[in-house]
C-alpha cells in the first residue's frame, strides 16, 4: 500500500522510465506488446496458409476423378457414339438456321402488307427445300439413337458394379463378411461390350451413304429466292451442307481408328478443364467440367463493368484533384467512397427489381432498334450485371487514381503552367502521363474487385452456362452468362461432399484465387515502376 502511494506520487516521467520493472509471466510490457502484435500477424498468416492449403487439397483430387470420368467415357463407348452425335448436331444447327431464315422472311413479307396465305405461297419452294434438307439425316439419326442406348447400358453396368463394390466395402467395414461375400462383382468386359457398338459400323456407313446422297440432292435442288438476304442465307447453308458431306469420310476414319482402351493421359484431365467449352453436370450421358464458359462470362461482365467504371472513376478523380473547389471536393469525395458501403446484395436486388427491366424496356423502344443486339431478349444479362459491378468498381478506381494524381510532384504542374500550357493541356499532357502507371494499377485493382464479386452476378447475370455468341458482335454483351464466382455460390450448397462436382467447384475457386493473385501482382509491379519514374 505504501509503495503504491509512493509510486503515484512520483512524477510521470520517472514512472515511465521505470515501467520495465513490471513483469508478467517473465515478460516486460515491451515484450508483451511486441508478442501481441507479432502473434496477431502470425495468426493471420497461419489462417491464410491453412485456407490456401485446404483449397488446393480439396481441388487436387479433381484430376484423378476427372481422368476416371473421361476414361469411362471412352471405355463405355460414349466417345464413339458422340462422333455420330456431332454430325447430327451440325446438321440440326443448319436446319435451325433455315427455320430462322424462313421466320425472318415471313415476318418481313407480312410486314410489307402480304397476307399470311400470300407469304406462305411465296415460300413454298423454300419449304420444300427445308423439308428435304431436314429429312436427309433421318437414317443417321436412327443409328445414333440405337447406339446411344447401347453405350448407356454399358455405362450403367459399370455404375452398378461400382455401387456393388462400395456396398461390399461398407459391409466388410461393418464386419459383416458373410453378406459381403454374397455380393459378386464381375468386372465389365468393355472389349466385348463395345464390339456391339463397332458392329454397327456397316449400318452407319450405309446410313451415311443415304445421308450424303439425300443431302446432295437437296442442296442441288436449292431454290433461288427473290430476296437477296434470304438467297445469301441459302447459299451459306449450301456451302456448309457441302462441308458436312465432305466431312463424312473423316468421321468414318476417326471412328474406325477409335479404340475403347486407348489410355487417357493425366494432362487431358487438366486440359479438358481449362479449355473445355462445356460445363455440364448431373447429366445422364456424360458430365463435362470445362471452365471456359464461366471464365468468358466472368471476363465479359468485368469488361463491361470496367468500360463504364474507368471513364467515370478517372474523370471524377481528375476533377476532384485538379478542378473542384474545396467545397465540391468535400462533398464529392466522401460521396463516391460511400458507394462502396452499399452491400452488394442490395445492388443485386436493385438489379433484379429495377435495372434489368429498365434496360430491357429501353432496348425495346423502336428508335433504339438500330443498335446491334437490341431489343434484348433477357432482362438479366451481362450488361445488367456489368452496370451494377461498375458502380462497385468506381470507388476503388476513383480513390486510387486520385492518390496517383496527387502524388505527381507539384513542380511538374507549375512548370507546365509556366510554359504557358492551359489547364486542359496540363491535365492531358502532364498529369495523366505522369500518373499513368498509378492509374493503370487502379484500373487493375478495380478489375480484381469486380471479377471476385459474387452476389451481383449471381442475381443479375442470367446464369446461362454457355459462351456468348460473339458472331452477333455487340449483341454478345446483352446475352446472359454464368460466372466463376456465381457457379460456386449456386452449386456448392447442394453438391455431394467429395464428389467430382464438388472438387470441380474447388478447382474453379483455385482459378479465381490465382487470377486475383496475378492481378494484384501486376498492379504492384506497375506501381513500383511508377515510383522509380518519379524519382
Amino acid at each position, binding site marked *: 500500500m505504501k509503495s503504491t502511494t509512493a509510486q503515484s506520487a512520483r512524477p510521470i516521467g520517472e514512472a515511465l522510465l521505470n515501467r520495465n520493472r513490471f513483469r508478467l509471466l517473465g515478460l516486460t510490457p515491451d515484450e508483451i506488446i511486441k508478442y501481441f502484435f507479432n502473434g496477431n500477424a502470425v495468426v493471420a498468416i497461419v489462417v491464410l496458409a491453412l485456407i490456401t492449403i485446404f483449397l488446393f487439397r480439396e481441388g487436387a483430387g479433381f484430376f484423378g476423378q476427372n481422368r476416371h470420368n473421361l476414361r469411362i467415357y471412352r471405355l463405355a463407348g460414349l466417345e464413339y457414339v458422340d462422333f455420330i452425335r456431332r454430325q447430327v448436331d451440325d446438321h440440326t444447327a443448319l436446319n435451325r438456321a433455315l*427455320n430462322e431464315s424462313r*421466320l425472318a422472311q415471313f415476318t418481313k413479307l407480312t410486314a410489307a402488307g402480304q397476307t399470311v396465305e400470300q407469304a406462305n405461297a411465296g415460300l413454298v419452294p423454300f419449304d420444300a427445300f427445308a423439308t428435304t434438307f431436314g429429312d436427309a439425316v433421318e437414317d443417321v439419326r436412327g443409328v445414333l439413337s440405337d447406339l446411344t442406348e447401347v453405350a448407356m447400358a454399358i455405362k450403367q453396368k459399370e455404375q452398378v458394379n461400382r455401387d456393388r463394390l462400395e456396398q461390399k466395402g461398407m459391409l466388410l467395414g461393418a464386419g459383416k463378411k458373410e453378406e459381403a461375400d454374397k455380393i459378386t462383382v464381375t468386372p465389365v468386359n468393355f472389349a466385348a461390350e463395345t464390339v456391339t457398338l463397332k458392329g454397327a459400323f456397316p449400318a452407319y456407313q450405309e446410313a451415311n451413304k443415304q445421308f450424303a446422297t439425300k443431302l446432295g440432292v437437296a442442296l442441288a435442288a436449292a431454290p433461288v429466292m427473290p430476296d437477296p438476304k434470304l438467297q445469301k442465307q441459302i447459299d451459306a447453308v449450301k456451302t456448309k451442307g457441302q462441308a458436312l458431306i465432305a466431312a463424312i469420310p473423316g468421321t468414318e476414319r476417326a471412328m474406325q481408328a477409335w479404340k475403347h482402351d486407348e489410355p487417357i493421359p493425366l494432362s487431358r484431365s487438366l486440359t479438358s478443364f481449362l479449355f473445355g467449352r462445356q460445363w455440364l453436370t448431373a447429366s*445422364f*450421358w456424360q458430365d463435362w467440367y470445362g471452365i471456359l464458359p464461366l471464365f468468358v462470362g466472368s471476363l465479359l461482365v468485368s469488361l463491361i463493368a470496367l468500360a463504364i467504371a474507368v471513364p467515370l472513376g478517372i474523370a471524377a478523380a481528375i476533377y476532384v484533384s485538379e478542378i473542384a473547389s474545396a467545397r465540391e471536393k468535400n462533398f464529392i469525395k466522401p460521396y463516391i467512397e460511400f458507394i462502396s458501403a452499399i452491400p452488394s446484395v442490395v445492388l443485386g436486388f436493385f438489379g433484379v427489381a429495377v435495372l434489368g427491366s429498365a434496360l430491357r424496356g429501353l432496348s425495346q423502344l423502336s428508335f433504339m432498334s438500330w443498335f446491334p443486339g437490341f431489343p434484348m*431478349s433477357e432482362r438479366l444479362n451481362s450488361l445488367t450485371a456489368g452496370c451494377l459491378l461498375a458502380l462497385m468498381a468506381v470507388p476503388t478506381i476513383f480513390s486510387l487514381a486520385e492518390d496517383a494524381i496527387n502524388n505527381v510532384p507539384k513542380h511538374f504542374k507549375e512548370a507546365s503552367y509556366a510554359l504557358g500550357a492551359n489547364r486542359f493541356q496540363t491535365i492531358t499532357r502532364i498529369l495523366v502521363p505522369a500518373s499513368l502507371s498509378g492509374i493503370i494499377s487502379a484500373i487493375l485493382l478495380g478489375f480484381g474487385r469486380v471479377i471476385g464479386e459474387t452476389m451481383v452476378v449471381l442475381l443479375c447475370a442470367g446464369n446461362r452456362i454457355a459462351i456468348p455468341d460473339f458472331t452477333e458482335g455487340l449483341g454478345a454483351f446483352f446475352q446472359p452468362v454464368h460466372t466463376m464466382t456465381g457457379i460456386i455460390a449456386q*452449386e456448392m*450448397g447442394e453438391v455431394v461432399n467429395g464428389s467430382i462436382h464438388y472438387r470441380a467447384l474447388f478447382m474453379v475457386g483455385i482459378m479465381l484465387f490465382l487470377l486475383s493473385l496475378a492481378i494484384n501482382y501486376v498492379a504492384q509491379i506497375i506501381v513500383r515502376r511508377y515510383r522509380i519514374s518519379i524519382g
Partner: protein
Amino acid sequence: MKIIQFLSIPTALVLAVSTASAGKLVIKGSDTLGAKLVPQLAEAYKAKNPDTSFEIAAEGSTTGLTAIIDSTADIGMSSRHAKVIEESAAEAKGAKLTPTIVAYDGLVVIVNVKSPLANLTRRQVEQIFTGDVTDWSALGGAAGKISIYTRNTSSGTYSDWKELAMKKRDYAPSSQKMAGHEQIAAEVGKNPSGIGYVGLAYVKAAGVKMIKIEGLELSDETVRNKSWPYARPTFYYTNGAPAGEAKKFTDFTLSDEGQAIARKVGFVPVK
C-alpha cells in the same frame, strides 16, 4: 433461396450435435418438403402436443437419408427413392430405410400470360427444354426466341425434370439456371417468351399461366392415376417402421388435417 440454405448449414451443424431425445423430433432432408410443408405441419402438431419440440433442417434429400443411416434424425425427408447404395449403407450400419409416401409434388409448365399457347404435348416440352425447338413460332406461338428457365444444376428438381420430361437428355445450353421456384416464376412472369417449370404452389405468381399437357391439367385425379406426367412422390424415411413420436407425427401428416395443410402449400394429397 439456395443462399439462405447455404447460410443455414452452420445452424444445421448445431442441430446435428443435439440428437434425438424424448419429446423432441429431429427432421432433416429435402428442401421440397422442408421449406414450407413440414414446418407448417410441425406448428399445427405442436398446437396439439405442446410438449413436443422440433428441429427441422432442409438441405436436400441426400442429407435426410444420411441422417437416418447415421441415426442423427428421427425422420428423413426425401423427394426421391433411396438409392441402392444408400440402402446398403444403412444395412451395414444396422438400419433399415423405410419410406412412407406423405404427399405428391406436382410440377407444372408455366409460360407468360401474354403467350397465346394453352396446350403442349410431352414431345414438345421435351423439344423445348432440350433446345430442339428454339422459336415459339414452331409451336404455334408468336414468333420469338424461347427463353428457358430451370433450377440450378445441383438441385434434385433439376435432374428429376430431365427424367420426367426430357427422356434423360441434357438441357439446352441456352437454359438459364435460377436459384429457386420463386425466381423461375418471377422471370417467366416478366418475359413474354419465357417458359419454366415450378411446383404447384408457385403458379399464382404474377404474370404466369399454367400450360395443359396433352390436354390435361394437374389435379388430384391426374396425379394419383399417374396420367399427369410431371409428378413425383415425396417421402418420410424412417429407421424401420415409424415408432413413438415419429409415428405420431407421420400419422398426423397423413390425417385429414395434415393433408389439408399439404394441399394449402401446393402439394397433392395422397388420398
